[in-house]
Structure formats: structure tokens, C-alpha cells
């Protein structure tokens, strides 16, 4: 009698990317989908206990074993590659693509106010974004979107779990959370003396 929980644990352990429930069900087609889900739940509970050096996280629409954040300092000694670091321009560009995809380079550059060619190439090479196709407007510009690797990098379950963009009311207290009404931009009056 095969032990489904053990099998799922093995599969998640050897997989080199997050494993979706769908893929698990394809691999384990002699098992019931509900049973597989139960096995996942049992594993999450087991690995969710305090003091574990391995945790089971939900990321990129799948499940993946990862190390807990509190051990990061020790693991950094192990990995030869230096921890990932992103420039501010790469992060801003990624954020814009993540929230506005599919998006063209021109739109990104309008939002950031600077040229983004170099940054786009870098994050394309890192596979954090991909070319989704061409936009059906004159000039047929390329459109970009984020990848599974993007979700994995930022430990996001899916794009919907991106935090909602904060509307800004006042710069001095950056980011008030509440949604904001129409911008009161028509003000015909007396700014003139300021100039």
C-alpha cells in the first residue's frame, strides 16, 4: 500500500521548481485529487512546526520546500553566489511590469520618466520578465509581463497576491492605505502669486 504523503513529500523534495496541485495530480493519476490535497495539507502542518529548518511554502501557484528566513545568515555562508541585489531602477521597472502587464517599453518609460532599455534587457536575461508578444497598435511594440521566476524570487503565490498599490495623498506621510477619490486637480485659483 503506497504512502501518498510520503510520495508527495519525495516529489516536492526533488522538484527543482514549485509544484502545482495540477501537476501533482498528473503525476499521481492513480490517486484521488482530494487525497493529494489532504497529503499536502498534512505536510504543510508537519513542516509548519516551530524550529523546522525546512518549510513548505505556497509560491508561484505551487508548493515548494524552502528554508525559513531566520536561517538565511547561515545559508549565505554556504552559497557561493552572492545574494541577489537589485538596483532601484530594476525594482521600479519590475514593479511597473508586475502591476501593469502586459505593458510596453514606452509605457514603462513614461511612468518612470527615464529610458529603460538597459534595465529591460537585464531583467529579461534574468528571466524575471518575458516578451508576451506584440501590441496591436501602430508600430507593434513588444509587450512584457512577469514570469514564474519573478513570483519565485519574491515569494509570491500568484500575481493576485501582490500588495495593492497604495494611492498617495501626501508625500510627507508616504502611503496612506485608503483608496482615494478623484484627484482635485482643477484649481483655478490663487497659486499664481507663488511664482
Amino acid at each position, binding site marked *: 500500500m503506497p504512502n501518498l504523503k510520503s510520495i508527495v513529500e519525495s516529489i516536492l523534495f526533488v522538484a527543482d521548481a514549485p509544484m502545482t496541485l495540477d501537476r501533482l495530480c498528473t503525476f499521481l493519476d492513480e490517486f484521488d485529487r482530494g487525497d493529494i490535497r489532504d497529503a499536502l495539507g498534512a505536510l504543510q502542518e508537519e513542516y509548519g512546526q516551530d524550529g523546522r529548518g525546512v518549510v513548505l511554502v505556497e509560491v508561484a501557484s505551487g508548493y515548494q520546500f524552502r528554508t525559513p528566513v531566520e536561517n538565511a545568515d547561515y545559508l549565505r555562508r554556504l552559497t557561493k553566489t552572492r545574494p541577489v541585489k537589485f538596483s*532601484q531602477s530594476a525594482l521600479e521597472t519590475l514593479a511597473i511590469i508586475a*502591476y501593469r502587464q502586459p505593458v510596453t517599453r514606452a509605457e514603462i518609460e513614461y511612468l518612470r520618466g527615464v529610458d529603460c532599455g538597459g534595465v529591460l534587457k537585464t531583467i529579461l536575461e534574468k528571466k524575471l520578465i518575458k516578451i508576451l508578444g506584440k501590441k496591436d497598435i501602430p508600430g507593434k511594440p513588444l509587450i512584457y509581463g512577469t514570469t514564474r521566476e519573478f513570483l519565485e524570487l519574491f*515569494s509570491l503565490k500568484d500575481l493576485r497576491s*501582490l500588495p495593492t498599490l*497604495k*494611492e498617495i495623498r*501626501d508625500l510627507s506621510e508616504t502611503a496612506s492605505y485608503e483608496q482615494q477619490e478623484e*484627484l482635485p486637480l482643477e484649481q483655478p485659483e490663487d497659486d499664481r502669486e507663488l511664482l
Partner: protein
Amino acid sequence: MSNGGNLDLYQDEESSSYTVKLEVFEGPLDLLLHLIRKNEVDIYDIPLSIITKEYLEYIKMMKELNLEIAGEFLVMASTLIQIKSKTLLPTPADEDAAEEEEEDPRAELVRRLLEYQKYKDAALSLTGRDMLGRDTYARSFISPELAEMLPEEEPVEVELFELIEAFRKVLDRVSEESFHEVGAESITIAERINEILSLLEGKESLLFDELFPEHFNRDFLIATFLAVLELCKLKMVKVVQANRYGSIWIQPAVMEGEGSLVDAES
């Protein structure tokens, strides 16, 4: 979500290479946001005289430090000045214009600044997340168990960008090599004649541009051009243009006489 303090916001190269410390901004919008915050002014009611003055002072400072000033900073400078001069114009007296109820000339800029600030915050919250390879680690290699089992079929995983990059590398290499050694004899006119004829085979016409791929080495282009001239001379093709500025088409000149044109040629 831990570890938000681990940021390195201004790590661009420029920031370290100058002795005088000048804050580095991501662009004109970033700089403007900084000035607005520094002066503690209302973003919906930007005092353009102050902000423009300080903006221009910053650019002047960059210039004095011999920093390369990105064009976007200058564009914004001119935008600021334009907006400023617009706000200086007297409100039109006649009713027609007043009815149009003109938007504050600063409105578009304010919208852009607020929008940009939103994504700046979003970028910040991204780095505050548990990042793979910084805060959390996964097994990023193929487990020995799997490596020992040879895959039977091999689906392929590849991104379009990788395909294009591969091609770009080939072309970079080719033009370099042909520049140094390959020389004109690598593509002969005769070869191109044959290729053009086989492209034409079974077709009524061919777009002239199709013979000149966008990126190819000079020798190829020259050989192609000479091949077309040669084919015209041999009366094997006709070069036609529907109108003066229209596309140029190449047509087989001999439609009769069955048999392959190419055979006749070779």
C-alpha cells in the same frame, strides 16, 4: 516579510565614483519628488518657482561635477519652465475661453509624480519580501535521484528572448569574422543569383526588400544587389515598381518556356 532594511537604493555606479557626494536620482520624477518632500510643499499645489529653481540648481551642480546629465533631466527642465510660463499667462478675459475651464497646467505633472511614487513604493515593498536567494533558499539543482534517471522524452523550455539573443550573437560573430577574414568570395554573385531564382520559383513576384535582410554583412548585401543587376542584364527578371514611391518588386521575366528557370541558369 522581514528584512526590509537590506536595501541598497543608490547603488548605481555613479554614486561611488565622485568625491563630492551628490544624491543620485532615478530620473527627473524622482528628483522632483525629492524636492517636493524636502520643501514640505503640497504636491497638489506645487510652488513652481521654488521647485524649478532648485531643480535647475541640481542640474547645474551635476554639470559642475562633470556628471553626464541624462536627456530626460533636460526635457523635464524645459517642461517645468513651460508650465511655469503657462501659469504666468493672464487668465483669458473673454467668456468663450473661460468656459473651457482650463486645467491647471501642473495637473499632468502632478498625476505623473503621484503615479511614479506609487511604483516607487511598490518597488520598496518588493525588496521587503522574502527574497529567494537572500532570505530563503530552495534546492536549485537537480536532485541526484532524478539525475540518475535518464529522461525518456525531452520537452523543451525556452523563452523567445533567448532565441533572439542567440541569433544576435551569431550575427555579431559573423559580421566580425567576415570583416576580418571571410571576404567577398564567401558569397559569390552566382550563388545569390541562384538563391534569388529559387526564391522566385513558383511565385509571380518577390518584394525587393525581401532580398535584403535587415542585418547581414555588407558583402552579402553587395552580392545580392549585383546579382539582381546581373539577372536584369540577362533578362531573367524584371524589376517593377507600381508607383513612384511604391515597393519594388522582382518578377520572373520568362513566364513561358516551362521548366525551371534555375535549371536554365545552372
